């Protein structure tokens, strides 16, 4: 484990050396042939790299190279907006090329709006690999980068992981710009800032910090920037990797960085003054700071009647507690604390225990592990087989194990309730899954006392944690009375006048007054 960390720090250093190398492609040679040679060397063995030479002007005196990655750019657009105008306008051009042609291209030939200049070979290569077309002109040391990226990836659709009854069905996709557009669509305000940066020495993944200026705490935005810059890795394939790097407490089971696939949820978080991190290639957008209480919040809560939302919140708290503690409590009661079980229930329990060859602890372990196996299998296996699996699982876990005398009826019920409850609070699914085992072991050795020990340890840990400087257990610890309106209870949305105070936004009051003041700020 430690060896790996050392290696990583070493490889980090190597990578930074590589960056220097890649940065030293040098200037763009004026000769088209030299450019051609240089590009062919850089992109040797890249079958998707396309370099096309256009010779136009009188006698083909003007040579223009078009370089792009096949499949990455929209060929239609490239032909319509770039190649055709060049051929049309420069067919009878008499000037020998060079800067004048470059200026004419940018000023009046290339139709596309998204154009910028590449001053050296490095920038030009960057443009090519990020899906843009680059034009090199013979006799000119600047290259023209034209954004003709083809729309890629799947369509915007409803996310599978976070479904809600009420609220938008749109979910994020793998394409970063689609994602940022989805947010822009919801927050039509120039104060919504999107800061782009590239992470991963090899993958050069586009990562975007998103926040609302004048709302998000500047210190937090700064901290996010700092932490992202500190990431030393060569590959960022998913926002999950960023999450692990920027988490406050990297070993904790509890998430201190939130992630969501839902646009409306993210917009809400931004408007609370949080900072979002988009990662190209991942439909999961991160939000920080992430507090414990957010795991029991759902978007439906704000769109629905407040009483109902409050009831759902309480239900989620109960579900979270149940899924973590129920098997442990059951084992503790059955092997230590018979005195607190009501008489008739005790008879039922004792009857169901009869003839079971295992101790309740072993029995619980077997059943829970069996359930986790089924769950994992359900995630991994192809969807059509899922149904067969669930039937087998239900029969094996529910019916056959009881009939065979391996597990008691009540244990099956306990594990079933635990399983159902564990899906109700998805962000804490993994934490409660692992803690369940810890609690179970403690319960078997020390009964309720053991459960209390572990619970105290967990709470101490939770209260100690911070997410980007914000106490994790806020608004409960430290008690922020103002923020309790959106914790276990939900007040109606018209009464939720202030944003979560603990995030220390620049503007705490929602509504007209707040936004007016913001506009004044802009004028200044």
């Amino acid at each position, binding site marked *: 484990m430690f060896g790996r960390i050392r290696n990583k720090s070493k490889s980090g250093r190597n990578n930074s050396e590589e960056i220097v190398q890649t940065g030293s492609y040098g200037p763009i040679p004026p000769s088209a042939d030299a450019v051609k040679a240089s590009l062919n060397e850089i992109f040797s063995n890249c079958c998707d790299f396309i370099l096309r030479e256009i010779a136009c002007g009188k006698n083909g005196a003007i040579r223009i190279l078009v370089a792009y990655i096949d499949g990455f750019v929209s060929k239609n657009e490239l032909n319509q907006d770039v190649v055709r105008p060049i051929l049309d306008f420069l067919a009878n051009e008499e000037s020998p090329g060079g800067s004048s042609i470059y200026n004419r291209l940018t000023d009046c030939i290339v139709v596309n709006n998204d154009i910028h200049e590449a001053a050296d070979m490095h920038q030009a290569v960057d443009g090519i690999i990020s899906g843009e077309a680059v034009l090199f002109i013979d006799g000119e040391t600047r290259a023209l980068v034209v954004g003709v990226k083809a729309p890629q990836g799947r369509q915007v659709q409803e996310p599978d992981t976070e479904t809600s009854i009420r609220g938008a069905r749109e979910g994020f996709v793998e394409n970063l710009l689609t994602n940022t557009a989805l947010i822009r669509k919801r927050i039509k305000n120039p104060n919504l800032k999107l800061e782009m940066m590239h992470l991963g020495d090899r993958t050069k993944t586009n990562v975007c910090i998103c926040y609302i200026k004048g709302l998000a705490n500047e210190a937090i935005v700064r901290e996010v920037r700092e932490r992202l810059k500190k990431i030393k890795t060569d590959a960022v394939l998913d926002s999950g990797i960023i999450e692990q790097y920027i988490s406050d407490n990297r070993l904790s089971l509890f998430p201190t960085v939130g992630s969501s696939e839902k646009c409306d949820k993210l917009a809400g978080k931004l408007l609370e003054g949080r900072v979002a991190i988009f990662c190209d290639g991942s439909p999961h957008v991160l939000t920080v700071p992430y507090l414990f209480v957010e795991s029991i919040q759902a978007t439906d809560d704000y769109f629905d009647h407040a009483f109902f939302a409050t009831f759902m919140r309480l239900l989620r708290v109960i579900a979270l507690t149940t899924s973590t503690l129920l098997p442990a409590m059951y084992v503790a009661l059955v092997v230590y604390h018979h005195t607190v079980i009501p008489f008739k229930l005790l008879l039922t329990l*004792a009857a169901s225990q009869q003839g079971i060859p295992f101790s309740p602890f072993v029995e619980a372990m077997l059943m829970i592990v069996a359930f986790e196996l089924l769950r994992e299998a359900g995630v991994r296996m192809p969807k059509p087989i899922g149904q067969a699996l669930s039937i087998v699982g239900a029969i094996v876990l529910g019916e056959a194990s009881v009939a065979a005398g391996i597990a008691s009826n009540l244990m099956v019920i306990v594990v079933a309730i635990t399983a159902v409850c564990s899906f109700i609070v998805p962000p804490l699914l993994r934490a409660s899954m692992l803690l369940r085992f810890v609690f179970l072991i403690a319960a078997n050795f020390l009964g309720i006392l053991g459960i209390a020990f572990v619970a105290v340890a967990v709470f101490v840990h939770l209260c100690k944690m911070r997410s980007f400087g914000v106490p994790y257990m806020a608004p409960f610890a430290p008690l922020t009375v103002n923020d309790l309106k959106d914790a276990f209870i939900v007040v109606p949305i018209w009464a939720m006048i202030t944003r979560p105070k603990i995030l220390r936004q620049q503007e705490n009051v929602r509504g007209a007054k707040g936004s007016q003041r913001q506009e004044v700020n802009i004028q200044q």
Partner: protein
Amino acid sequence: MTAGWRKKAKGMVLLAFLLACLLLLSGCWNYKELTDINVVVGVGLDRTEEGKVLLTVQVAEPGSIQSTSGHRSGGEGPTKPVFVVSHEGETIFGAIREMLATVDKKLFFSTAQVLILSERLARESLEESLDFFQRDHEVDYLMNVLVAKDVSPAEILAMESDMDTIPAVYISETVENTSYRGTGKKTMLIDVIKDMDCKGKQPVIGQITKAGENMVRTEGLAVFKEGKLVGWLDPYETRGYQFAMNDIGSAIVNIPAEEGKMSMEVFRSKAKIGVEFEDGEPACLMVKVRLEANVGGHEGKGKLDAPEKISALEEILEETIRKEIAMALEKAQDEYSSDIFGFGMEVHKYHPQYWKKSQDEWDQIFSRLPADIQVDAKIRRTGIIINPVIKEH
């Protein structure tokens, strides 16, 4: 940074290891699986002539009670829902442990529904016998205590019941329903212990008798004085006592009415007792009962069509209940000289000076005092008909 992290990780691994040791090396404190205990449902305490303790326990067999899970063990296993074992020992706790020579698993007492005391034990040594039940942490203070009259606890516990698979549950349920009749009293262990400790009130314990081949009757009371059984109250006296003690949930009181009988359903009753003082000396025992009743049945010919008739009925009802209370009070005063009503507590509360000097002879003083019993009855409704439906001749 790496070195610091490594140190921290090492520390945490060490801490986790030590914590694991703490858990694993301590062994399994008090670990007992449900299949390793015998679920005691009824306890009987008797005293032999040699002064030994005769302990009887009724133990439930969960497997045979739960028919749903019973099919798993097939034809084998216990078929009877309970078994009863008796054992003679020097002390109660001793007898419980010695019993393990004949019983397979450790006895678990929290589930005991009833504690049945024999008459002999109650007459000789109630207080000594209950010490174990107060001291042991496993005993449920809310279990019902009964004194067996004319029958031994072992006999009662050995009876099978047709009403509930577990006889002890059947017994405790008949005790629970006293709130609908008032002729018995639900006495929990905690009540007995409290009364034993209190100087101004003598304990009473519900009474249990045999009512047939496999039936019991929980009616009447056992009256104690200074920790020893001194006598009994019959069902009507018991009801009078319960009226005075403000312990009636509902009761049916039969009264004579014109041309027949009437059953009055008392559905609300409030009572207060007190001691009247004159010149610093107690002069009179006061019992005030206010109750509300409905006409529950009229087995006769009379009519209830006028308010005067209702008030006449109220007077008869008051008189009937007054008599029941008087019977109980007289018996406690004259026959047993035991202040089971707790008038002493009232004296203690309102005349502490007097109580201080005379608490030791309170029982004699109590026995001498005249009683003033006031009953105020209100008849609220006559049911959904007014007059009996009888064909006019």
